[in-house]
């Protein structure tokens, strides 16, 4: 399944529960606008480099559209459309006043010099500046784009439209970025877990065991927050492999080791473990925090975790998801769990619009409030409609987007 098909699979499942007609379904799935642009720059060696840039804007009924920009060779309209629609539903689940968008450039940034990367980014902004903006569409970092890229976007856009820090989020804290933005997705995932544990009468993070696949921005922050709360993180991994200690890993020291070595592997006092085996550990909570499609038909029957916290986007294939639901394994769905990132992006945008800076405590408290409120709504839908958390999230999102669309008039 392509990204778009996968998102639509869950969308349709919720649509069936809601008894949506085909016409309404088609209206909600169809994107508002798809843009494909030429991004040509002079390379360092004097040659001409031509790349293709994309921006898909899925829905703007609830507010300006929001979504990441990724620099990756696989970027195309189909992928961007799937992820753009996911952003529509995700912002609706946590009730942010945003719609969904996604885009990027089909390029491998590892082949570019810093100068080429900057020229490429600025050229892309020149090509799409008419369709983005603080009240239209607000990009954010995604795969292979970071705070520096966002700073260039803000600068280039501001040249054409005047001072506009709110045109992108995920900017450096020194350039209108928000405190707490970097750790927001990991922190939000832990808040999501805490809400579930409280609701399910399963106590707190303290004493529970965790395995985390992925030790990038999301995984490492999630590990740190779980560790701080007394959780026992017994295994983590990155692209080079994983480390395992049944007694629990010392996360602050592991983060230092990873910064130093650029990998978690070889951490003293741990045994190596493969990415595949990590998924099968008998832990209380499994946290896929890296790639999509890691829990599949092939390994789902061997999974021994009681709970899955989807910090990554789409880590579970639809077939594996069905199997888990049947087995009674709870899946806290990506659309809710990793919404902390876009939520703090919303706070960054709000601070930029207000020209008023929030303390980190306020950012975190507001994030927790959004995650808590969203969970309370999902839990109600699960109880009243006897559906999974994922279907509940889509039902809530479709309801909110649908009402906004109807109230505006169709």
């Amino acid at each position: 399944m392509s990204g778009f098909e996968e998102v639509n699979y869950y969308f349709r499942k919720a649509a069936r529960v809601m008894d949506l007609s085909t016409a309404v379904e088609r209206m909600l799935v169809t994107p508002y606008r798809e843009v494909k642009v030429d991004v040509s720059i002079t390379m360092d060696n004097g040659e001409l480099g031509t790349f293709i840039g994309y921006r898909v804007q899925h829905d703007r009924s609830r507010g300006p559209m929001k979504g990441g920009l990724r620099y990756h060779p696989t970027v195309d309209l189909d992928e961007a459309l799937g992820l753009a629609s996911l952003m529509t539903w995700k912002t609706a689940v946590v009730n942010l006043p945003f719609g969904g968008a996604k885009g990027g450039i089909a390029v491998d940034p590892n082949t570019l010099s810093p100068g080429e990367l900057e020229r490429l980014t600025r050229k892309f902004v020149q090509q799409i500046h008419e369709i983005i903006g603080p009240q239209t569409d607000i990009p954010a970092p995604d795969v292979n784009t970071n705070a520096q890229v966002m700073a260039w976007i803000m600068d280039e856009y501001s040249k054409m439209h005047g001072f506009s820090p709110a045109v992108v989020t995920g900017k450096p804290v020194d350039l209108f970025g928000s405190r707490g933005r970097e750790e927001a997705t990991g922190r939000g995932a832990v808040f999501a877990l805490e809400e579930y544990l409280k609701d399910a009468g399963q106590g707190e993070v303290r004493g529970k065991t965790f395995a985390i696949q992925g030790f990038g921005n999301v995984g490492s922050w999630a590990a740190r927050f779980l560790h701080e709360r007394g959780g026992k993180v017994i295994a983590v991994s990155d692209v080079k492999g994983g480390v395992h200690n049944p007694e629990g890993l010392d996360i602050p020291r592991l983060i230092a080791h990873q910064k130093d070595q650029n990998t978690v592997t070889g951490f003293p006092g741990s045994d190596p473990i493969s990415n595949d085996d990590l998924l099968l550990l008998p832990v209380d909570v499994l946290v896929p925090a890296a790639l999509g499609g890691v829990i599949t038909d092939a390994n789902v029957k061997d999974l021994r975790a009681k709970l899955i916290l989807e910090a990554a986007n789409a880590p579970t294939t639809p077939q594996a998801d069905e199997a888990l639901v049947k087995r009674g394994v709870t899946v806290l769905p990506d659309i809710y769990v990793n919404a902390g990132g876009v939520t703090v992006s919303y706070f960054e945008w709000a601070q930029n619009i207000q020209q008023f800076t929030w303390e980190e405590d306020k950012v975190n408290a507001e994030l927790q409030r959004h995650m808590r409120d969203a969970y309370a709504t999902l839990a109600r839908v699960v109880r009243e409609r006897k559906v999974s958390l994922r279907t509940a999230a889509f039902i809530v999102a479709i309801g909110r987007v649908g009402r906004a669309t109807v109230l505006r008039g169709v």
Partner: protein
Amino acid sequence: MTPSEASKVIRGVLCRGLSYEQTEQILKAMVPVKAETGLIVFKEGERPQGLMVLLEGTVEVFKQASGKKGRDEVLATIEAPTVLGEISLLTEGPHTASIRAKTACEFSLLTTTQFHRLLREESLAAYKVIAILAEVLARRLHRMDEKFVEVSRKSASAPVEELTAFKQKLFTDWSF
């Protein structure tokens, strides 16, 4: 089917109310036709041969698919005894649909030429046949009226009602 059995069927469908002589006049003008299963008896758009009385078997009335990949749209399946090609006989226009033998079929054909010859001779028998055909057409028109009302109701109001109901439900059933 023997010729006498065939005349009996023709009498039933086409010659009700005709005297013995008048019936004989019509029967004499007709020729027998056979069709194997699957054979196209006449094609949409072709010049009509005349009026067919289906004596035995079953036929399908269909509209041909427009593209190569499209499927034929079957309008009706008709069993003997009945008359076919009555519209083309009266309008002299091309056939408005095609007919395919669904089973082995036997027909009796009253050619357009023969029919018009009888009309020119002011044959009362031919005019009586027209009256019978008018009755057949009236019945079919009536059925079509009913069908039309049903289809137009379905296509216009159902999705509108559905959409209105869904809009309402967004605020009642799906607001949490």
